């Protein structure tokens, strides 16, 4: 039986038979459904607003994350992988977007949900955070956590300041590099000065002053420091010297967090603690989070 015979399958496939039509119809109807199922079942269906948890290692990011999920923070160790959890705003706090809704309204309940994204703070693993910052889809804010006790000494302060400097500079570049006239959606930053239960912890005001000073210093030594190898090694365009950008008002004078407002980033410093004898104190941070939702 050759393909051109009366009853070969090819002829049948092109002839107006009922079975052929039926097969074609089922294919047409079922295939998109299957494809849809295949693709969408695995894609995360959420477009929840998210908040990024950044900060140096040991600040208490993972501890805070576990605290938002349960009554008390779970024991934690140094993270090596990021983690996103679906969190709910604590009761009594009203998300800013649902201010005029009443509790019980489904939209109100929905507005209280958000994703909290924890990132590893170790120096070698900051690329997770950088990747999150590079494509901030629906990021409503950044919680930059620091250990308020460790910023009392030089090394801890410098580490925090360097990391914070890089984060703020990324945000600034994102703003100034935006093509649209309106500028991108603003991403505010909360500096959460954690571990206020320790008596060596600095109060938030002092944390702010110290960080601003240290960032000024970081900016200065970046300006004096060597250029990095990015341009020199990219063989083709040696003429194009990468234009360097400085954090805050062109990089002159002392740096203040206030200057970030011009580039669409408000920076607030609030104290609190995740652990501690008198129980956790995180209400200032969650109040801030509620404002961003």
């Amino acid at each position, binding site marked *: 039986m050759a393909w051109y015979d009366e009853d070969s399958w090819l002829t049948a496939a092109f002839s107006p038979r009922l079975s052929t039509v039926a097969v074609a119809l089922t294919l047409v109807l079922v295939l998109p459904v299957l494809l849809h199922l295949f693709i969408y079942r695995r894609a995360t269906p959420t477009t929840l607003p998210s908040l990024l948890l950044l900060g140096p290692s040991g600040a208490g990011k993972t501890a805070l994350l576990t605290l938002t999920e349960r009554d008390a923070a779970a024991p934690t160790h140094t993270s090596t992988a990021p983690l996103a959890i679906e969190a709910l705003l604590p009761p009594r706090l009203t998300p800013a977007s649902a201010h005029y809704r009443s509790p019980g309204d489904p939209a109100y309940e929905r507005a209280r949900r958000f994703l909290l994204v924890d990132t590893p703070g170790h*120096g070698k693993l900051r690329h997770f955070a950088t990747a999150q910052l590079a494509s901030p889809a629906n990021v409503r804010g950044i919680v930059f956590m620091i250990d308020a006790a460790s910023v009392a000494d030089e090394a801890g302060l410098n580490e925090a300041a360097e990391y914070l400097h890089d984060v703020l500079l990324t945000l600034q570049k994102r703003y100034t590099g935006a093509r649209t006239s309106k500028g991108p959606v603003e991403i505010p930053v909360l500096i959460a000065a954690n571990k206020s239960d320790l008596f060596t912890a600095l109060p938030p005001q002092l944390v702010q002053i110290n960080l601003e000073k240290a960032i000024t210093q970081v900016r200065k030594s970046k300006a004096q420091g*060597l250029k990095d190898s990015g341009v020199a*090694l990219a063989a083709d365009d040696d003429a194009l010297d990468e234009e360097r950008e400085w954090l805050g008002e062109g990089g002159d004078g002392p740096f203040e967090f206030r200057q970030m407002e011009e580039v669409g980033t408000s920076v607030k410093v609030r104290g609190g603690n995740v652990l501690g004898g008198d129980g956790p104190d995180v209400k200032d941070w969650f109040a801030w989070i509620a404002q961003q939702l």
Partner: protein
Amino acid sequence: MLDTFEILTTSGVVLWSRTYVPVGASIINSLIREVFIEERIPPPSDAGQKPTYKKEGYTLKWTTAKDLGLIFVVRGCLAVYQSLVHLTWIDKLLDNVRALFAGIFEEQLKKGHTSVVDTDTFGPYFDRQVQELERANEATPNVKLTPPSSTENDSAEDNAPPVLQKPQRPLYDTSADSTPVPTPDTSRPTTPAHTHLVTAKGGPGPKGKLSRRDKKKVAALNSAPASSGDEGSARKKGKASAKKNRVWGEFGAEEEDPSVVLDYSQGDIQNSNPRTEALEEIKSETWGRKTAKGEFVLKDLDEEMDEIIAEQNAKRESLAYSKESKGLVGSSIGAIGGLFRNVVGGKTLTKEDLAKPLKGMEEHLLRKNVAREAAVRLCDSVERDLVGLKTGNFTTIESTIRTSMESALTKILTPTNSLDLLREISTINTSQSRPYVLSIVGVNGVGKSTNLSKIAFFLLQNHHRVLIAAADTFRSGAVEQLRVHVRNLKELSAREGGQVDIFEKGYGKDAANIAADAVKYAAANNFNVVLIDTAGRRHNDARLMSSLEKFGKLANPDKIFMVGEALVGSDSVAQARNFNASFGPGRGLDGFVISKCDTVGDMVGTLVSMVHATGIPVVFLGVGQQYGDLRGLNVRSVCMLLMS
């Protein structure tokens, strides 16, 4: 022996832990930092033994479940781990617990967007594992695991045939369905045993509680043949003499044989009371209800554990080796599906899937001048990362490997702490009021003096007062060469306001002494930075290399940088290692300066090789002939070059 057993996720949350001797979290933190992140200790290469990590008198052993993102860590005291057999005991425990934990909590662990895993039920499983392995170990002759016991009780039981110990088992059987109460094993006065006693006294506490739902889940998880009550009981009856003590009720429910209780009180009188109470409770509540339903699942905790472990092991194996062919049709459909998934994503990666593309990746890295050793290590770490993972939507294996390799490269090249030379100098100058000392080492002809001058130029631009010490007293012409550099630098920096001079003592003198003198001279003459040039030496020249130790001690530099050529090939690993080790214990290199980067195009693999060999970061790159041609490292651009 055991201090702690912890099960934590890669994201840092402790899911379950059992602590016998509490110590702070810092030791496990430094394990994670040093081994998992900085990879200072090479991952296990020899088969069988799991790696160990020692710190502050503690020994840690660990294993991971990559697909679930779990780390299992055991911590113990150094002394107890010494016996080789003991180490394998711990290995076995780790493996079994991993299998158990993965089997029981897999579903919960795979749930996204949460860090909560309800692991309250895990305690009894763990305790049972510990006991069982301990017992198995005891059977092995010539091994002293636990300190000799003091009570006569113990020795009696120790010498008793295993049958005598078994009557304790029914207790487990009863409780397995609702409230397992750990057996008090008085034969082992070790710490874990004590904890058992405490748990037992507490009766059916929250820790010991095993909810029936979980139990069912476990049962469902196992495609167990013995899932129906009748079958189970039938099997049990047919089992070893130990089970004969059990009396089966009319519904198949077991009732405590008096002898069992007797046995108990014999073994451990002070504990018999709470135990019987616990039993009563179980009987009245759980058993009654279940029997009425007439469909309870009777299973031994042990059997159950064995099944979970076996199942998990089988799973692991099937992942490791490709599946058997399922007949012609099955396999061809499988192949097409595989191809489809390869394009669309959602394929679970096995070693075989990865082997070929990884080989290609390795070749690619070799072409980029990465030393073979480093390339193999990177590919291994990518493999470890990916085996058992599912590829994402619309990603091929190749692109998955690429992404993973990129992040492995980023991780290896990114320094733990970024170096800010200027700040360090000012800190040392002000806080210790002495000059900052920086020294440069390396093999012959890599450009030590040139790069030293480049660093000097950079410092002069920032208005430092720099003294350059000519400690190369070996190669003729070295001092003259430096003199020329210093003259040039003087001219260049006259406008900038820097100040530079040379400290020389001619040839043939001891380099270490010259360096030490230079530091004293600088302090006396108001220089705030001393740069010390050293003689080039082959890294396999033992005599010259050994003089570096004395040099390090006498000159005591704040930083020692090694200059390496970007052109050097596979030798880079040995160079970096030998130089790093040459300063004696407690001192090593602080960074690499890679010279002549402008001559190699995108073949910048040397950077990776050197960092791989030592874990020490690259701080500067030399990119040209001018004094200004010194650059900091941009990890991202180097990664892009390597992956291009």
